[in-house]
């Protein structure tokens, strides 16, 4: 029984890492700019598709394709901010909401046109399996978990320790005060979208390597990302990390010990229960 619990926890950690990265991107955009960026899932999958294309069609090694995809993701984030969201920044919130929905359909369509309708799996060549006691962990999942930890740590360091990170936090806390303190608030949304999209691309690569990318997959992940956002607490980075991990492990344990048919339902029931006790989310601040 203990081995099964540990195995399910490890199973859930990898997918939890993906949720964390998706949610971090979403929480950055939502917490700082107040935009529910629904296209985040589709943009993430674009990153996965791009990596697949670079590896399989251009013959690049995966280790070279990943940084290229992350940089393209960053630039794509800038483009999305300038073209899609900047024009509606000062308009009613519903405008940004509609733009987000339209952008989702557009990116899904672009993915379909550029990469086709078939599911793709990013080849990694990592097929070793490590065994410890009765627990088995595939090499690929270990790398995914490590990569997620490194990216989360880098993001936290950036936000906490750099001047740009401090400026982002200042805008998130109080935009008017940040302007008075001399923060260049025009560049903040650009940086936020760039970083958020890069994190999403990293998540897309992980999904493509662990599982598969196919049309429509991104939508499912963005729903989970928003669930994590609410579970962890809106706009809270530590909340997104905790929420993503909890959701991944809960899904795995629910499928293993209750029923695989209801794993999504059970995960959302847990989320609702948490919110009943802590309406602000696990690590969110009380209003």
């Amino acid at each position: 029984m203990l081995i099964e619990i540990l195995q399910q926890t490890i199973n859930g950690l990898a997918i939890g890492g993906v949720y964390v990265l998706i949610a971090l991107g979403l929480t950055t955009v939502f917490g700082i700019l107040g935009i529910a960026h629904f296209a985040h899932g589709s943009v993430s999958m674009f990153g996965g598709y791009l990596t697949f294309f670079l590896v399989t069609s251009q013959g690049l090694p995966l280790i070279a394709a990943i940084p290229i995809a992350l940089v393209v993701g960053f630039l794509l984030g800038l483009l999305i901010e300038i073209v899609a969201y900047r024009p509606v920044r000062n308009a009613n919130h519903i405008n940004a909401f509609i733009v987000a929905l339209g952008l989702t359909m557009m990116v899904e369509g672009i993915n379909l046109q550029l990469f086709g309708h078939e599911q793709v799996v990013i080849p990694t060549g990592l097929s070793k399996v490590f065994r410890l006691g009765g627990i088995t962990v595939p090499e690929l999942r270990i790398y995914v978990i490590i990569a997620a930890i490194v990216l989360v740590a880098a993001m936290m360091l950036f936000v906490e320790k750099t001047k740009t990170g401090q400026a982002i936090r200042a805008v998130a806390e109080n935009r008017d005060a940040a302007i008075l303190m001399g923060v260049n608030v025009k560049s903040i949304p650009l940086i936020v979208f760039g970083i958020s999209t890069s994190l999403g691309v990293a998540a897309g690569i992980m999904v493509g390597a662990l599982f598969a990318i196919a049309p429509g997959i991104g939508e499912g992940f963005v729903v989970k990302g928003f669930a994590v956002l609410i579970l962890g607490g809106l706009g809270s980075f530590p909340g997104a990390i905790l929420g993503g991990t909890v959701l991944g492990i809960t899904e795995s344990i629910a499928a293993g010990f209750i029923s695989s048919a209801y794993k999504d339902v059970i995960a959302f029931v847990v989320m609702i229960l948490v919110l009943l006790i802590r309406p602000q989310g696990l690590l969110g601040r009380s209003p």
Partner: protein
Amino acid sequence: MFNRVKTGALAALAMALATTSAFAAEKKLTIGVADALTGGGAVYGLPQANAVRMAADEINAAGGIKVGSDTYKIDVIAYDDKANPTEATNAVRKLIDRDGVKYILGFCCSGSTSAVASFIGNEKAVMLVGNAAERSITTKKIPNLVRTRPPADFTGQAAGTFIARKGQKRIAVIGALDVGFYAQYVDSVERELKKVGSEIIAREVFTLRDRDMTPQLTKIRALNPDAILVVGYVESAAFVYRQAVELGMNIPRYGFTSGSEEQFLRVTTSAQMEGVWDLRPTELDLLSASKNGIAYHANYTKRYNATPSPSSPYAYDQLYVLKAAIEVAGTVDDTVAVARAIRALAIPPQVVMQYLPVDGKMFDVNGQAYTTNGAFQWQKGKWVFVEDLPSDAKAYSQFLSTLN
């Protein structure tokens, strides 16, 4: 005077030529295909649509369909039903109402096919179902519907006998069990297992969109089964096979998927697939294929630069069935006569699948065709046909006739 005669003669010649060409004009018969060309079902639907186009070109190149003194060249319109019941209904309505199509082929997936089957009986059209395996499609006695693929439980019975013979006592099932025909397959397997004292100890479910099956497999692993049985679409099943190895499950793996090598290798490695059994209708496989099957494989591969999926000939065969029936009925307009002719057909010589005739005919009274079933095993990167599975088409046909 001479000029007037010459002009008159030329005019007469032109008129004669025009009249002759009007009589000899080729007629066009538009065939519709409704199938999953995108989405999860496209692994089955797209190769089916390709197969119909290929058969149409072959028939056209060989002179077309002969109806009395007329010759019809086939034109194919294919719509994407995304394996979705609503999309399939819309696609078929469009084919019938807008395009004026009377013969509709394809239909890879059961949910979408059942939706169309529910109203096709009221239409002046003939529906030829391919890969969709849900049993109820041919239990409703719809006179203008036939199916080339046998129902899933016909194959499940044969698969159950095979697994029981292997001596494994405790089998864990993982699959898309919320899809009717997969559940029917497993029920049939279970009935056969019970006869020898074996049992199914777990029924774990995944949805068609799931790709992480490690929680279900971890649960199964804790039960210590003697073997696992995987039933589902290729894309999901491939992940089950891969993740079972990653979880160290070194037990026999049986499946019901009908995927090609290429489709599996997009997800797994050949080493992860080694030894897996696929217990399914004896579809296209080069080791078991007839001369037609070998030619089909070569032509398809050349034309589409991809190997055909094992189930794709169900749709290819549909068009040859239709051609034969139209020629026997002597009409393309009277769909009732063509539907009747289809049911009375012997197996046409051009078909690829190995059909089991019932009372000398390709389709039984339910409009159902039966193929042999086979045990295929993954050996060194390929599906290898190992043996035929016992399949009694006549007995099953009688059973099918008793259902509503």
